[in-house]
């Protein structure tokens, strides 16, 4: 399914053929659920949020101006919704210090359980202040494309770059503190 197929499906839905919306849902369910998951880190909630995004898209389909790609419009709509949802009911996040303590993710010999560490880093992104968290989520979701992240957030590219840089810096300093010291060194 291509961008022109999206447009055809939208036109059919607007003409009253509700079933045509299923094509849109089938095509975009993966990206929308995954984007929601990166915001809330909860599978069930991600599906609920993505469903709400599709419903909102259905309600406002006539507002899609065809000068932008359908996907750009859909992602911007979904991002907006996910951000407000998280503002309304924040994701259940445990403090990073607690996670680090419970699982002791620090390396024994300088190496680290990669999977655990990756999960920890993603949790750390969720715990960032929203303006940095959103930019980081969108940036990495769109394969490190600043322009796409900016479109999704409705922000100028310069602002996105600045927040990205600051967000990474906060993240790096937090992680450095929690992950960098090898456990063996403590006993020495």
């Amino acid at each position: 399914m291509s961008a022109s197929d999206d447009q055809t499906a939208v036109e059919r839905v607007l003409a009253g053929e509700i079933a045509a919306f299923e094509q849109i849902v089938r095509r975009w369910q993966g990206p929308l659920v995954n984007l929601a998951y990166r915001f809330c880190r909860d599978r069930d909630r991600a599906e609920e949020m993505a469903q709400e995004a599709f419903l909102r898209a259905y309600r406002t389909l006539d507002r899609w101006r065809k000068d932008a790609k359908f996907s750009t419009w859909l992602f911007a709509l979904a991002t907006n919704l996910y951000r407000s949802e998280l503002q309304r009911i924040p994701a259940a996040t445990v403090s990073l210090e607690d996670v680090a303590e419970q699982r002791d993710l620090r390396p024994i010999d300088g190496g680290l359980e990669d999977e655990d560490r990756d999960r920890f880093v993603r949790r750390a992104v969720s715990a960032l202040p929203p303006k940095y968290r959103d930019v980081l989520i969108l940036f990495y979701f769109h394969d490190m494309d600043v322009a796409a992240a900016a479109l999704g957030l409705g922000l100028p590219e310069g602002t996105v770059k600045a927040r990205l840089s600051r967000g990474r810096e906060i993240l790096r300093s937090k992680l450095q503190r929690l992950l960098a010291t090898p456990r063996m060194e403590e006993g020495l």
Partner: protein
Amino acid sequence: MRHDDLDRTLSGEEDIVPSSGFVTGVMDAVRREASTPRPIPFPWKWALPGLAAWTFVLVSFLIAVFTQISRGAMAPSIVASPTLLTILAGAKSVGVGWMALALLMSFASVKLSTRLIGGRT
């Protein structure tokens, strides 16, 4: 942790797969939505000219009253009483006209909101 490590970790996240009933669930919700009649939007197109005219009349009236008071050009029959003149001067000094305008606007917006809410239920 270096930027490269961050990039690798955050861009290399594996995707989750939506559950098998996801599309059906969304389409059911969409069909329910489609079968529910849409709420009738407030007829701004018709209401706006009336509201604008009303505001214009009110503001013009108040401006006229202020001008008359400040020039002291009220009809002799109205301003004949020195007590009334004192009251008018006092009212002018504390800005009663603006207060009245603010009160009227507040009253109008409360009435309008109540009417809009009443129309929905």
